[in-house]
């Protein structure tokens, strides 16, 4: 998926003022879905690093570095930088799901985070 298209999708997701309820619900479910690894390492989900509660500080699974809460309600900077959102969705979908997320999945995740 090209960089420009990623930005478009993210912009679309962010522009919608209120979180789309259906999308947010999908995002909530997708957040904790586990993706097993073929090499025997532990299964991964978004919650592995960000925890299931987005208002809490997370922790990088390998380096243990603290990750600031994702919820805009406690961390107002979140979701304000489109490029940053696009960058992390690209990387983290690849790392967690093993592939890039679809446009719908990205919108769902963004809606879910927005609602927290």
């Amino acid at each position, binding site marked *: 998926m090209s960089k420009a298209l990623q930005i478009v999708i993210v912009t679309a997701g962010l522009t919608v003022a209120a979180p789309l309820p259906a999308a947010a619900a999908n995002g909530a479910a997708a957040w904790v879905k586990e993706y097993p690894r073929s090499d025997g390492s532990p299964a991964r989900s978004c919650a592995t690093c960000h925890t299931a509660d987005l208002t809490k500080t997370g922790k990088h699974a*390998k*380096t*243990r*570095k603290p990750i600031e809460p994702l919820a805009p309600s406690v961390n107002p900077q979140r979701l304000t930088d489109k490029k940053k959102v696009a960058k992390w969705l*690209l*990387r*983290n979908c*690849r*790392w967690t799901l093993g592939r890039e997320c679809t446009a719908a999945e990205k919108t769902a995740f963004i809606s879910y985070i927005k609602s927290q």
Partner: protein
Amino acid sequence: MNLSLRTLSLVTAALLALGMAGLAIGDSDEDDDDDHDERRGGWIKPGKDVQPVSNATYAEECGACHMAYQPGLLPSSAWQQVMSVDALAAHYGDDASLSDGVRLALADYLNANGADQARRSRSRAFSVGGAGTGPLPRITATRYFRNEHDEIPASMVVNNAEVGSFSNCNACHQGAVEGVYNEHQVKIPGFPKWED
């Protein structure tokens, strides 16, 4: 004149004896363990061993998941390997992909400041003997790193919940982020002060 001369001479002899005794007792180098940390810590503030990170983009991008490792901790050739597009997508088990502009700018910064070009000898030491035989270079696989850390048991690092890995420099090296890796400033979480 003779009396005061004798007194002075005796005083000098006494001072000599006291001085030598004091030095001999104060210096506990008889033990296997080297106590020089306690004895001399605090005379001089430790200087930097490695040039601190001076690129804001590098600090932000490459410090997002782990301490932003100073460029002086690996030779330029190693950094070139790390910064290829493929290597970033498979970055030590994670995905650290960057946009081309950012990637090239950071690669330039790393190349220009690698260990092989460092002014400080402790930084240059990281360019001696390669960086391991794995698919990607590792700071922890350099000869200098291994020599300096070979006495540290797994219980203090890998099996230590607060540290986790030898790659987690600033968990123990209190001045790591500023480029100070001096052994006087090592505090391993959960253990008493490290005696070399």
